[in-house]
């Protein structure tokens, strides 16, 4: 188990800045996911760690080992970094059998024939691919190829594993299955893992720590719980969650003794006192943190059902009040008619408040 430590990393391609400034520490044995939309710099970050791209500035350490420093003139080539790496397209060598795909790198390490065979067997066992040892990659299904790529990475027994969207070429069902498998593998191998994806479900389900990136910068770093429930800024709030988060812009004020966010034709009750110089802010709430009732209730907001999308285990409801469209998520397969009235109630504790201009989480209420 080794720690990965990046400081001040910067990487651009010509005029295009891929990673603007990155400080990142991955604890020994942790599973860290870099999450973000395409072009946010997540893959570049992974390639910088692997040594496949050279940053213009910054420093990389694995444990005590200095891997890269522009300032000190140190650069360890990817060949000598002792990593396990897995690509989105698996990168299996098509002209070699499964066995050769796995052993080529082992032979390079100067292992004895016995040790090579032992590692090959162990790796194939771990991904349940023993019977396909003599097949060529073209004779395997996508999921099986994925397992071979995993086996190849496992066989290297590196203490640092890097994965670049390894599941995105699989169909939905297989992806869920492999996700579980990856989690189990990580527990077995105890290697420090950096995982890159644009899929938030993978990020939330697999990781110890999630790093959300956008436009070459870290937007937030935290546990999946923190990322989901306490987004550091509006970008993270919007990016995480499917269906997306609800946003309301308004001013906190007092009306008939009650305190709430005045969004024009929508009144969102909030606790506490309004600040002295009240200014606009953004409140967000997850669709599942809004309670729904089909019967009229006191103090609840009356809305009209605009669309309904049952997913099986739960149902997405789109409701309207005035100019506001609000998304709700309710458990179960709900059947209702469009246009029906509904009453909703916001779980006040689940609200997050953001500064309108900077988009950063105010982290407190009422805002100072």
């Amino acid at each position, binding site marked *: 188990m080794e720690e990965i430590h990046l400081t001040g990393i*910067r990487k651009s*391609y*010509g005029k295009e*800045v891929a990673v*603007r*400034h990155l400080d990142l520490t991955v604890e020994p044995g942790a599973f860290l996911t870099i999450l973000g939309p395409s072009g946010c710099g997540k893959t570049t970050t992974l390639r910088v760690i*692997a*040594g*496949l791209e*050279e940053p*213009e*500035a910054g420093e990389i350490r694995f444990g005590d080992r200095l891997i890269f420093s*522009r*300032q*000190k*003139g*140190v*650069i360890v*080539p*990817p*060949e*000598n*970094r*002792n*990593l*396990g*790496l897995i*690509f989105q*397209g698996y*990168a299996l*060598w*098509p*002209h070699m059998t499964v066995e050769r795909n796995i052993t*080529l*790198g082992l032979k*390079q*390490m100067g292992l004895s024939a016995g040790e090579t065979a032992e590692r090959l067997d162990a790796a194939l066992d771990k991904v349940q691919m023993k019977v396909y040892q003599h097949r060529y990659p073209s004779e395997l299904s996508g999921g099986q190829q994925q397992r071979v790529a995993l086996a*190849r990475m496992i066989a*290297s027994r590196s203490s640092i594993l890097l994965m670049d969207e390894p599941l995105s070429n699989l169909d939905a069902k297989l992806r869920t299955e492999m996700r579980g498998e990856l989690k189990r593998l990580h527990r077995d191998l105890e290697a420090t893992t950096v995982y890159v994806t644009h899929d938030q479900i993978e990020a939330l389900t697999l990781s110890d720590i999630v790093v959300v990136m956008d436009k070459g*910068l870290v937007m937030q770093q935290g546990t999946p719980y923190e990322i989901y429930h306490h987004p550091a800024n509006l970008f993270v709030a919007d990016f995480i969650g499917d269906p997306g988060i609800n946003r309301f812009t308004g001013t906190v004020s007092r009306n008939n003794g009650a305190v709430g966010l005045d969004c024009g034709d929508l009144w969102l009750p909030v606790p506490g006192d309004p600040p002295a110089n009240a200014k606009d802010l953004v409140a967000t709430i997850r669709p599942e943190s809004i309670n729904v009732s089909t019967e009229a209730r006191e103090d609840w907001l009356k809305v009209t059902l605009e669309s309904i999308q049952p997913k099986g285990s739960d149902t997405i409801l789109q409701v309207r009040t005035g100019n506001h469209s609000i998304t709700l998520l309710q458990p179960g397969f709900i059947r209702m008619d469009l246009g029906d009235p509904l009453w909703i109630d916001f779980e006040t504790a689940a609200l997050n408040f953001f500064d309108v201009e900077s988009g950063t989480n105010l982290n407190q209420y009422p805002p100072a």
Partner: protein
Amino acid sequence: MSLDTASSGSKPPVLSRSNLSYHVYRLVNQPEKILGLLCLAVLSVLVLGPLFEIIHDALVYQSYDLAYRPEAKVGSFTLFHLERVFTGPLSKALFLKPLFNSVAVGVCVTVLGVGIGSGLAWLMVRTNIRFKGVFGALAVVPYMMPSWVLALAWLSLFKNDRIGGNEGMITSFFGVQPPDWVSYGFFPIVICLALHYYAYGFLLMSGALATVDSELEEAGAIAGMNRRQRLWRITFPLLLPALGSAVVLTFIRILGTFGTPALLGLPVRFFTFSTQIYASLNARNSGDAFVLALVLIVMAITFIWINSRVIGIRKSFVTLTGKGFRQREIKLGAWQWPATIAVAAFLVVTVLLPMLILLWESLVITPGEYSLKGLTAHFWIGKSDIDIANGEPGIWHSPGILTALWNTIKLGVLAAVCNGMLGLLVGYAAVRGRGTLLARWLEGVAFAPYIFPSIALGAIYIGMFSTPWGPLPALYGTFTILVLITVVKNLPFTSRTGIAAILQIDKSLEETARVQGIGWFRRMAKIIIPMSSSGVTAGMLLTFITATRELSLIILLLSPANMVLTGVIFSYNEHDMTQHSGAVTLFLVMIIVGANVLVRMLTGGGGLAGLRHT
């Protein structure tokens, strides 16, 4: 979030010692860069070096100029060669006439050849003409042949008594002398070249036609266009890029071609640029030859430039993807059989007849007497007989020919191997370094030989390698120079093959190996070379074919010590030993056809498809 983007990367000190070792170490870990630099250096020496060398030689006094200007100092700057060629009293003979002849031949052959090729392509791809398979195979045979086979056959048929020696079959059978304009000069040169070079137009246009979706034409019909409007507004613009390439390719080849204008033009002193360069070098006026070669290159570049202006350099047509379209065969109706017969007759005349004529030529015992009684195999397998052909033995017993045969095969194999390796390395450096200045330069330099007409490149190489050049010894007259020039001339093609092959290998396949600790040489050996071998092998075999049939490129560099079969044929013909030249030509054709069969077997029939990329 407000980190400054442009100025935050503080630069490390530039000249510290650790910094230097860092840069060296970094370079070592970027094999594509080292490779790119190496390739660029080698190619610059082999391609650009010679060009600067002849520009230099054309602008300074040479020792042989002392005959005209005894007071001149060898090596000092002069416009003497330029004056001689462009304004002096000899200018008309040296420059204007060859210029006029070259352009006239080039334009006529290009129009005729591309016209025939396009028409043939249209018949074969878009109509219901019969025997498409056989015709298709025969129509590309000229591409494999030496271009002057037709000229040899023409001489056997139409030779008259103008230059003495034996006469042709027409005279022998009918007792009439063909007029000079039929036997020699402009007319036969244009006919023979057009009947050979139509193959380029055919290959390129049939490839393009096969990718034009009939639905586009039908959409035009629905929009109310008549047949002619559809052809001009839809089909023709889509074919324009291919047509442009066909025109450029044919024209540049014609400018640089030597064999046919030499065989059919020199006897009546009809000079083109290529034969004038040859004559000037033979007369030891290299300065003139260099100036003429430069003019040829300028003409070729101008032509490419005009073409790219007219057609647009990167005009891409989205429909040319070859995906999800269908083609409707045009029914020729009553014209089906006449068209089939016409194409059959054309292919017999251009492909089979010349072979038959040369075969007959090689079997007659007395030159010029084409009766069935006098047939002999002497010129193939006979031993030296003082009564026949001054004692020159048949090709099977002639040490000169066997040496030339060995040289030809050696040249083909060496050029193919060198081209294959160089193409792969250039491809690797260019693809892995994509987007860098180095890669762009490398691709550019590798493509440069394309614009040098063959004969001009030959002249350039004489200029450069007749004396030691840098670390290289004087290579003129050696076998090495033949290999070098063949490799360089084929480089535009093989480097493209290499680039295409490497592009197919995803970067991640190599990076995975890299991360596993596998070094560059082993990555090449275990991953890159095995995965690109089929494309590169096809490219190598095609280089072999082009190398064995080449004359224009190497004619200026041949000497008795490094003679190849094409040179032997040319010299037999110069000495009016027509049976020998016929026999050796057929022998060479057999070797080339054999190699092509090999290409087809190894590439699953796709061997010639690769030619469309040239």
